[in-house]
């Protein structure tokens, strides 16, 4: 989750960022214009009620004209209805527009992140990417709604009230304006204090949540290792720290809210004395004085909100900074401008020509590897952990970019192909079987509608997954939970095999992780599955299990990033080199006995 996302606060306005953000608003400029017009309408209509009160008091009421109040009443009620409509329609339009903008921004980020190469995902935890796409996008939306229209609305409201007051009576207006500095100052001071207080509060709450989450997940460990007491003490400490910041915030509010009240009484008192004196001197009427008390109160609201907007803008700027940083990260692997086409049908011949690669270019994992796999041949790659076996598969699917050399498919450099074309012919079965929430069927064909239900079932049967699927309630409609948590590791692996079978690529890359947490029976099914996957197609198997090797035509031995041996199992044993040693060692470890002759 996002418990630890540090808040970086900077400027509340950054022209460069704002211009880019406004780019997202452009498609909706007409909705925006309409919203602004409605806002101006609403701000104007709000000026009318106090004026009508003045008219009533100074007119019919003063003249003892009972019937004369009716027209004013209807005008007053009509104004309220208009004001209601303006406000409601404007809010609705603004919100539905901003919801569309959110989707636009979110989809832009999503598409961009999805197009990144795997090294990007190696460096950015999913939790962080999730924050970019959810919380940060919401902050951007706040900027668009609150930063543009609402900010403008506050300014317009304030301006309208000030102008109206000046027009009606400059003397009373000046009296009113005396109070403004008090309101502005008290609001600014309050905002300053609250900003830091809130930040501290949020950080401390985040800490509580993170700790709580971890303690709940790992409660058994805490209990088994008798650490309940120290967990209690620690939680108590962080909980009390949070409480202290809550107290601080509460005390600040306890001063601020009564202050608002006092300023409003102060405004009335000042207007009644100085304004009252003006009435006594016949400079203004009593009705106007009453209207001014209302106008002054109305003016306070936008002033207070303007201070609030500052915080919104500041965090929106920080969010957009983060979002644009992601959007500005160029995709490391891009399709060529003029891609070549593979000749159909794809034969599936693979060539590695002096390939050099390292996840970190300074520490190459592969140091010049060359080999060719003729179409239809099944090849196993063996070697100790860290020899670079896994990289071979990732590179063939072009998940990472090589630093030197070339990788060819049917004689064409894979860098001159579209990634989509390459990967639709080269299937990689990942070593960590991924499951998605959805049905078993969805997990086999993903969202590819070209694969029919019948094909899904056929794939499941060939790969041996059907055995367990048929036993599930609802079989192919069985709902797989997030991360496949309601399936065993073995079942997930079989599902991954079924998926590979359903997509049926010409070239198959398999990462065959040693899964000792799979029981012998499941493992036998899996061996049959691997055998069937390999049959009749070019395949590269990263073998951890020696048993897999017996189905391949040829073995490549990698050692410290170099290809050291190449041949059939028998040839390599006869060679009595690195493979033969590795084989005996692993065999001895796995079976602890004599190698059967």
């Amino acid at each position: 989750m996002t418990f630890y996302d540090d808040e970086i606060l900077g400027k509340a306005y950054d022209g460069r960022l704002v211009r880019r953000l406004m780019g997202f608003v452009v498609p909706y400029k007409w909705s925006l214009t309409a919203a602004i017009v409605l806002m101006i309408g609403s701000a104007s209509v709000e000026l009318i009620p106090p004026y009508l009160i003045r008219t009533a008091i100074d007119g019919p009421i003063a003249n003892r004209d009972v019937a004369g109040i009716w027209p004013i009443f209807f005008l007053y009620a009509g104004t309220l209805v208009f004001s209601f409509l303006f406000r409601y329609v404007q809010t609705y339009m603004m919100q539905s527009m901003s919801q569309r903008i959110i989707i636009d921004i979110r989809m832009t980020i999503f598409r961009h992140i999805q197009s990144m190469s795997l090294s990007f995902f190696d460096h950015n935890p999913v939790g962080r990417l999730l924050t970019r796409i959810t919380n940060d996008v919401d902050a951007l939306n706040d900027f668009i709604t609150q930063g543009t229209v609402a900010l403008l609305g506050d300014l317009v409201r304030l301006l309208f009230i000030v102008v109206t007051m000046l027009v009606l009576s400059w003397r009373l207006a000046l009296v009113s304006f005396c109070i403004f500095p008090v309101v502005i100052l008290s609001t600014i001071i309050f905002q300053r204090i609250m900003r830091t207080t809130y930040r501290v509060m949020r950080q401390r709450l985040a800490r509580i949540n993170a700790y709580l989450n971890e303690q709940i997940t790992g409660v058994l460990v805490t209990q088994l290792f008798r650490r309940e007491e120290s967990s209690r003490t620690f939680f108590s400490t962080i909980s009390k720290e949070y409480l202290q910041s809550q107290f601080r915030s509460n005390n600040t509010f306890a001063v601020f809210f009564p202050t608002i009240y006092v300023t409003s009484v102060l405004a009335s008192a000042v207007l009644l004395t100085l304004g009252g004196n003006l009435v006594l001197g016949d400079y203004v009427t009593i009705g106007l004085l009453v209207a001014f008390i209302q106008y002054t109160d109305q003016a306070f609201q936008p002033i207070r909100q303007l201070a609030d907007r500052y915080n919104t803008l500041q965090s929106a700027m920080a969010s957009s900074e983060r979002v644009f940083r992601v959007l500005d990260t160029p995709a490391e692997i891009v399709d060529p401008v003029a891609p070549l086409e593979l000749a159909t049908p794809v034969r599936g011949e693979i060539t590695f020509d002096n390939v050099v690669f390292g996840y970190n270019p300074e520490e190459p994992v592969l140091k010049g590897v060359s080999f060719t796999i003729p179409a239809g041949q099944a090849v196993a790659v063996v070697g100790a952990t860290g020899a670079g076996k896994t990289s071979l598969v990732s590179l063939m699917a072009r998940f990472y970019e090589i630093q030197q050399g070339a990788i060819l498919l049917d004689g064409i450099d894979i860098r001159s192909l579209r990634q989509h074309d390459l990967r639709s012919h080269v299937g990689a079965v990942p070593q960590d079987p991924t499951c998605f929430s959805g049905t078993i069927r969805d997990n086999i064909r993903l969202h590819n509608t070209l694969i029919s239900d019948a094909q899904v079932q056929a794939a499941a049967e060939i790969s041996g997954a059907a055995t367990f699927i048929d036993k599930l309630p609802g079989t192919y409609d069985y709902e797989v939970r997030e991360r496949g948590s309601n399936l065993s590791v073995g079942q997930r692996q079989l599902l991954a095999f079924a998926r590979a079978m359903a997509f049926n690529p010409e070239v198959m890359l398999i990462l065959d992780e040693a899964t000792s947490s799979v029981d012998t029976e499941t493992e036998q099914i899996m061996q049959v599955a691997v055998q069937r996957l390999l049959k009749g197609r070019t395949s590269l198997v990263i073998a951890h299990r020696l048993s897999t090797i017996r189905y391949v035509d040829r073995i490549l031995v990698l050692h410290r990033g170099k290809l050291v041996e190449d041949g059939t199992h028998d040839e390599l044993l006869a060679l009595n080199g690195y493979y033969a040693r590795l084989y005996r060692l692993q065999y001895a470890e796995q079976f602890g006995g004599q190698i059967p002759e």
Partner: protein
Amino acid sequence: MNQLRALWPYVVRYRWRYIVGILCNAIQIGFTVMVPQVVRVVVNEISTKGIIWDDLVAAALKMLGMAAVVFLFGFLSRVLILGTAHQVEGDVREAMFHRLLILDQKFYGEHHTGDLMTRVTNDISAIRQFFGPGVQQIGAVLMIVSASALMVATNLTLALIVLALLPVVTILFIVVGARMRLIFRKVQDLFGEVSTRVQEDFSGIRTIKAYTQEVQETEEFLRVNERYRAQNVRYVLLSGLLWPIISLVMGIIGSLVLLIGGQQVADGKMTIGDLVLFNSYLAALGWPVVALGWTVDLYQQAVSAAGRLGEVLQRVPSIRNNDDNGGIEHTVTGAIKFHNVGVSVGDGADARWILRHISFEVAEGQTVAIVGATGGGKTTLVNLLARVQDPSEGTISVDGHDIRDIALSSLREGIGYVPQDTFLFSVPVRENVAFGRPDASDEEIERALHISRLSNDVVQLPSGIDTLVGERGVTLSGGQKQRTAIARAVLRDPAILVLDDALSSVDTHTASQILEGLRQFRHGRTAILIAQRIATVRDADLIVLLRDGEIAEQGSHASLLAQGGLYTAMYQRETLADAVDNA
């Protein structure tokens, strides 16, 4: 109300603060409603021009004096009532955490982490809202009562019109608010779906890319987003309505006051000051009438929150010390005996035995291996020993004592457990290893790291043994995590070491090194090893083969092979199936 009773003790202890707070609130309200009375007099006198400058100043000072009193008592009541609510929240939070720490796995099996997190965060904050702002709304009631009384005293007709219409605002708030909450829940659910999609897509990016499903995934994501948007728009239709319609109703009441009050003033039945007074009270009542509706809302949320909190706070752990003697303090030496142990799940007709008729004995210092197919009950069996759960029948004894009689702390002190799923805390590696022995010396830690073959890995970490583990620090590989867990258990120097398939993510070469290291470490200790492969445990003193929850065979490797039964078949299958054709 019944549900709220679970939280009563946490509130009652602060009753004096609440009482004084409410008194302050009452004083604050009393002065608040008096200010418009001063305004009324001044307005009347200004309109009849029966006042001089000095009187105006005196009235203004009187108003400000009253405002000062309101300020002081407003401040006090907020600090007392709202501050105390924070205190209550903190107390309940700690109590919840303490309870969570002692609850058993049965409880955790019934509740997801997310669910429990919600209780400790959202539900507790609902409680604070009710015992803070909710209690403070007693002031809103006082305000309504006193302002109503003063309006009635001023002009009965006008007062009746206002009082007849004000409840409309409260009802509107309750009705629209309830509907809003309903839709908001759906909005949140859909937001959850959006997050889940992002999370799944990016976690499974390798699969998405390998099968070129980027376009389809993007379309799918757009669909979820569109549904979220549609629901959000439904929400906005209501939430955008709430405040404008409340101001509309309040405005209409105001216009009626202007109409009828104005006519009465014109008629000479009422003064202009009275009209201003009504306007002031109407403005002052705006919030209290909404607050009434809000309090109903707060109350309902607090009741359901209290129900969920009570479920945890009042839950008695099923795994606890013997109620009669509080548990015997006993230093475990390691002789284990299972006598006709059985574990069943479900009840009535659905009851199903996952372990039954389990009897075996391990002498102090011996090693027992438990083998068998997945789902055979191996993990459940070792969980029983550390009392992660208790058996449904039969007894387990350690050193001759029924483990239910031994103090939980003594029992667990004697066991070093490496569970199947490794859990590490996001603290430095050192703290993770020393988790069960915070006082361990560097040498002891070094030795534990050596046995678990973690020393070389640790050296390569950015800050060595002080490298932070987890989201904010380094992500350890599955094998490194398992080895850290082994080091953690070894460091405790336990009389009984339990390894539940603890080498599954470790490569075979390292695994055999660790096993060798443990073999020496195990010397003189009792050990229980769960393994998928017989090869790893063939030298155990006793091998127990579980099948469908019962012991199918037990004995030493040699004696089991001599029996030529299931074990032999399993061993042969393991050897043969994995054997490479060397022809």
